[in-house]
């Protein structure tokens, strides 16, 4: 008899609560905009913040409510996502941006570049930069204290076998977080297809750079002469490459006295490691 009563009472309670809950879920339902959901489902969902919104949902909401007109802000998604977003929103979108990736314009490790003092502080580039611009003699280079590595949402930045900080261009989503956090400004965006890079950021005179770093650009203009079609330009004692020119760049790389023009052809960090 007791078994029957308890069985009946629990079943009855279950029924009452079940009905109550199902009614409540209908009555108190949070109405979510279908458009927001649709947009959000197309975004990558890594919440990197590259678009300038708090996360993917923030950007999705802004697009769906037509507060944000630019549909190309999602750099991890690239043109594919932009096109999909345009389809949902029913607008045309102009895809002009080629895929960009961040890279470290410095190959000065402990052996190659000199230091001025022993740094014993917090392992963070911004903390080191507070005192005399870091302990390296070069005030433009990579301090190597991992601020960008910590901030990268996709773990695309590592210390390579040379001990230099390097970005894996296949993994980089060009969110720009590393560029933001870097105190020396040594990280910059380059096209994903870039074949060569002048891996130096020193704007000091050649003689000064040569004293403190064996792989620093000395502004000798050799690259301009060796590969005149390669888009090399020396300004402020520092060579840069204009990637809109697509001439030959190899000769300059070979002739560069400090060997700071590196080939990126088919080289990713992983390849180097293997």
């Amino acid at each position, binding site marked *: 008899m007791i078994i029957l009563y308890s069985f009946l009472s629990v079943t009855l309670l279950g029924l009452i609560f079940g009905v109550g809950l199902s009614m409540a879920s209908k009555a108190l339902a949070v109405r979510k905009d279908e458009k927001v959901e649709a947009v959000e489902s197309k975004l990558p969902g890594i919440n990197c913040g590259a678009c*300038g919104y708090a996360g993917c949902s923030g950007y999705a909401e802004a697009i769906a409510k037509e507060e944000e007109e630019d549909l190309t802000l999602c750099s991890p998604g690239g043109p594919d996502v932009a096109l999909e977003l345009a389809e949902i929103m029913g607008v045309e979108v102009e895809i002009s941006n080629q895929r960009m990736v961040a890279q470290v314009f410095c190959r000065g490790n402990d052996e190659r570049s000199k230091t001025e003092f022993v740094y014993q*502080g*917090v392992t963070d580039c911004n*903390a080191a930069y*507070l*005192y005399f611009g870091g302990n390296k003699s070069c005030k433009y280079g990579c301090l190597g204290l991992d601020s960008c590595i910590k901030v990268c949402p996709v773990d695309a930045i590592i210390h390579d076998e040379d001990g230099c900080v390097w970005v894996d261009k296949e993994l980089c989503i060009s969110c720009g977080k590393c560029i933001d956090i870097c105190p020396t400004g040594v990280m910059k965006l380059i096209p994903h297809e870039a074949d060569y890079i002048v891996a130096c950021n020193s704007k000091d005179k050649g003689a000064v750079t040569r004293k403190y770093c064996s792989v620093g650009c000395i502004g000798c203009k050799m690259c301009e002469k060796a590969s005149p079609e390669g888009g090399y330009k020396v300004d402020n004692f520092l060579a840069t490459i204009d990637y809109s020119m697509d001439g030959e760049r190899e000769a300059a790389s070979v002739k560069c006295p400090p060997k700071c023009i590196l080939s990126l052809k088919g080289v990713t960090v992983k390849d180097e490691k293997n």
Partner: protein
Amino acid sequence: MSKLKTFGLGGVHPHDRKSRTNGKPIEDAGIPAVAVIPMSQHLGSPADCTVEVGAKVEEGMPIGKSSGFISANIHSPVTGTVKEIGRVFLPNGTSSQAISIEVEESFSPKSSWKADKNWEELSKEELIDLVADMGIVGLGGATFPLNVKLKVPTGSTVEYLIINGVECEPYLTADHRGMLELTDKIFKGIEILYKIMEPEKVFIGIENNKPDAIKVMSQKASAMSFPTEVVPLKLRYPQGDEKQLIQAVTGREIPSGALPLAIGCIVSNVGTVYSLYEAVVLGKPLIERILTVSGGAIKEPKNLRVRIGTPISELIEKCGGFSEVPEKVVVGGPMMGFAIFDLDTPVTKGTSGILALTLKEVNSSVRTSCLNCGKCIQACPMGLNPTTLFKYIDHQDYDGAKDIGLLDCKECGSCGYTCPAHIPLIHGMKLGKLILRKNQQKQNKVKA
């Protein structure tokens, strides 16, 4: 003996190590061959350089003009020719525009200064303008422009003027010697401050490791025409900080984020008061300061009267050079000072001491993980939790650190001093504040 006053929370008791210099009279450091005058020697925006390369400058001539609400004028400490205008690193690790002046060989400092007007005839506003003209900043370390501090906004009143003669940093004895040797002049400076601020009472806080200074100052204080009291304080670090000193002397506590004026107090260092005297009575701008050169690796430690812009190496030479290779050369006190790597770094308005420390004094050790011992929490005079703050910062949660009071930290170094794991806690706090500042700037930009 009655119980000595002191502040409430936290604090540490480092050995004061003042005995090597506290008996030594202030000496003149002499004139450098080249003086390097940075344009950013104060809190706030750097001064605008008003001279060009090749220009002739004279002692006391303005060479930098205050460039904002919180900024200060800069004067040439020597007579000579401007050789170069470049950038140098300051002792605190930042870089600043600086004027190098090659000193004329025949130059000898002016022996008598004379103000244009008798200060007693000047009104309050004229006095404050004069202070601004003379480029006086707080010499206790924060280098806050004095004229800004003196402008009391309408609505607030100053009840207590507190003169800071605490000098709680170990090794430093410049203020101590100043109080002994320049007593009359300091009191003249206090009179000027009294005229500008009109407080109800003047307190002079001095720690009880300087009994001679307490005695001399008390004698003089009793003869003043307004109520002045010397308050002997129990030896404890960081008593020389504004907030701790006010609490020790008056028992009042400044609310978080507020200025001392919120509770009717104004604090000024004895060194600043002396410079105020020189500026107002003698018409001499802030071109010299008194500092201590000490530490185990210095042959003959001394208290020196130094021209701003003198390279630190010349001062060390003046003190007989190094007796052994120092492990660190620190500018400022050992608790809050900065280690420098280049001995040609110039002395600035905020340089209160130069310490060449031996390996034993530095007591450097390998950093280990946090032991959760809680010593830093006990030591923090602001009642913060340094170890948790550091963990937040270490994990890049700067807003989280702000929520638990990062901005109340004034980097006194008590936590780092007690930390048995040798964690660079203060450095972490500085990093956290830097990032918060950067993020704020970014937000302002977005809004604009």
